[in-house]
């Protein structure tokens, strides 16, 4: 295989979150428009100078990224629409980085956002995909809760994970969220509260579930030169991976695509898991965090429960993890959930994480996971990021 080229000369900058709301009467266009406006304002770049846009949204329909450009009065020379749910952030980053490197665009705004009307969630779930419509939704219409309950049930049975293990991660994330002004969850969570919560879809209980909400996230990708000229704090991309429909013959999902590409990820960056200062995973359910610990090389397959018991996952702990509080405590704003970890990592590496700041963070790992098309998540991605030098 040809060796991959580096991402030298590319910078990611200006992480921004449009504060989430449980329900919104606005359309997705409003949320995405607020994100773009903020990126322009925060960077000091003129609207007309943003010549590339990358969009992710579930509730933009019947529009696509194309219609959104007319809505927002943009005339980009490079446009992408990434419908990869929780993997959208990492994938947007790597697509945009290559476009900037190749000179197809100079400044790319990557934005993701969704609205949440009272009935949006049922609508999204019932129409999610053809396979879901034909072979999942008619079976109790439990939505992602049911799909992840099955994976969690299997994982617990196979590898001995307990509810206490999942609870430890959720409690740590809530601790982190209490330092995040944007988090929708404002109250502390104890392990006892976690364990006593009502069952939703066994073995998934209330605090294993994300809260659907409205919100948007965004960041800019540009040349390092441009970022330097604008005096923007910036982040370097050391390596990225993506994979779709990995291991289709596994009877049920117990690993994700990261396991196929993990060696390439670290090799390309010249780094190892030991070099990583903090990790932001896609956490729509706690079991997926365990899959990512294993598949991204922090422990062997099946050893995540033991890994969880050994570590402290708070911002100041031995394994700083989902430092924003993750979707479990911040909320899941549709496709913006796929940007949450990446935007938070950019904050950590540009020193704007405030009370959430991990001390001396130099290398961050972000991973994404998305799209339960039938019985498993199909898209996975990860990026190793490094604090940029002034």
């Amino acid at each position, binding site marked *: 295989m040809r060796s991959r080229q580096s991402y030298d000369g590319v910078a990611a900058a200006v992480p921004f979150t449009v504060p989430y709301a449980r329900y919104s009467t606005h359309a997705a266009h409003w949320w995405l428009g607020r994100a773009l406006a903020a990126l322009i304002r925060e960077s000091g770049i003129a609207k007309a100078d943003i010549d590339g846009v990358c969009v992710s949204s579930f509730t933009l329909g019947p529009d696509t990224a194309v219609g959104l450009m007319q809505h927002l009065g943009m005339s980009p020379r490079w446009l992408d629409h990434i419908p990869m749910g929780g993997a959208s952030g990492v994938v947007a980053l790597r697509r945009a980085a290559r476009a900037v490197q190749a000179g197809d665009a100079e400044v790319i705004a990557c934005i993701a956002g969704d609205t949440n009307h009272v009935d949006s969630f049922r609508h999204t779930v019932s129409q999610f995909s053809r*396979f879901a419509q*034909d*072979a999942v*939704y*008619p079976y109790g219409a*439990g939505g992602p809760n049911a799909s992840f309950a099955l994976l969690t049930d299997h994982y617990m049975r196979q590898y001995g994970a307990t509810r206490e293990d999942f609870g430890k991660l959720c409690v740590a994330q809530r601790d982190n969220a209490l330092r995040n002004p944007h988090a929708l969850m404002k109250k502390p969570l104890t392990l006892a509260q976690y364990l006593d919560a009502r069952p939703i*879809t066994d073995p998934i209980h209330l605090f294993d579930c994300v809260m659907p909400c409205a919100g948007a996230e965004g960041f800019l990708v540009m040349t390092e030169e441009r970022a330097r000229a604008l005096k923007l704090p910036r982040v370097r991309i050391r390596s990225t991976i993506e994979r779709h429909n990995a291991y289709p013959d596994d009877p049920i999902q117990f690993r994700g695509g990261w396991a196929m590409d993990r060696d390439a990820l670290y090799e390309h960056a010249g780094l190892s898991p030991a070099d990583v200062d903090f990790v932001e995973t896609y956490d729509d359910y706690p079991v997926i965090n365990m899959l990512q610990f294993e598949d991204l090389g922090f422990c062997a397959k099946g050893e995540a429960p033991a890994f969880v018991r050994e570590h402290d996952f708070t911002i100041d702990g031995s394994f700083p993890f989902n430092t924003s509080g993750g979707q479990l405590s911040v909320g899941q704003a549709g496709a913006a959930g796929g940007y949450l970890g990446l935007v938070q990592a950019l904050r950590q590496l540009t020193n704007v994480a405030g009370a959430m700041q991990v001390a001396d963070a130099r290398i961050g790992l972000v991973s994404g996971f998305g799209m339960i098309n039938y019985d498993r998540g199909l898209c996975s991605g990860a990026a190793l990021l490094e604090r940029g030098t002034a």
Partner: protein
Amino acid sequence: MTDATPKPKRKNPVARTRLPTLPPASRSRAALGLARAAAEGRFEMQACADCGAVQYPPREVCGSCLSERLDWREVANGGALIATTTLRHSNDPYFRERLPWRVGTVKMDAGPSVVAHVHEDCHEAGRVRLALKLDRSGQAVLHALPAEDTPNMNDSPQLRETHCDPKHRRVLVTDGRSTLGRAMVKALLDAGASTVFIGDPATWKADAGFDAFVASDPRIEPVALDVTDTDSVDRLAASIGAKVEILINTADHLRDGGVMNARDVGLARDAFDVNVLGLMRLAQAFGPTMCFRAADGTHGAVAWVNLLSIHALAALPARGAWSASKAAALSAALTLRAEFGGAGIRVMNVFPGPIDDEWEQLTPPPKLAPSAVAAAVVRGLRDGVEDLYVGDVAEELRARLRDNQKAVERELGG
């Protein structure tokens, strides 16, 4: 072990009757291949004609070799239950009314992993059998069942959503004077029906045998019913319409005679009056009330059965007028199925071969005993099928029609 379903409680007459809700019905066209198998109680999936890979969910091209030659085939229905969950929350109103609801992942011996409804008697991580059943939307769904039958298995709340078991239900058999009608009543009583209304089209005609039969079981209630008389049908519906949970239309007018070689259309008119217009009169009088009662308590209105004939699908020229009336009845029944769909009431069409009764005296064997047809109907209701082919003649004709309809036309005409 499944608890036997208790008899329905007496209804509070002032309580609101619960309206029927239906499970999600949207499917891709390819996925409707599952409905074709489930309608007849078969277990079929797509298999690739080139590489043999069994496909699920249904596809347009093979997920293994990309061939477009995907055939629906009977495949092994065994598998291992590798994960389960019990839903205590659902996004859909139908399931919300029925929580908790158990589903699981089954790794099939035939290859794919499937998400299925899981019977309460299935053991975690154990072996299961998969069955394709029609749900209340009339769409095919997979049910994981215990590897071996368990007591009262069919009484599980999940399976009760797929079938039309006559147990504890009140049934109207529209013509109980015929040999088949009586066999039908007997089979229903044996199956635990709580009341069988037995239609008598000729109350003016004394029949000691019929009277003795009616007196043989206190659950039998004779009622006057002439399906060719709109007033008679309407009167009966006004009297017992709100009690009929299954209607089995056994009325028939079977006579020899073709189309060109008949003196006039008198015979045809009589056959159509019973077999087609009779069905329509019954539907107009009983259908709306049945729709309203489709979700009424544990034993609401659930099924409508038409005793047709395999000759509804392939005309028998020696009985051309009668065959035409059966074909027309089938067409009307398909409309009725669409009209009942919104309430989730199953329309089961029964296609028997020749039945061994007084009208088939000269037909050579094999002929079906009326009791065998009646037993098949009860089995069909318990299995929740939609199309029921009864007997060797019917099944053979069904297969030959699929293979070459033109051959069947020529052979039946010869």
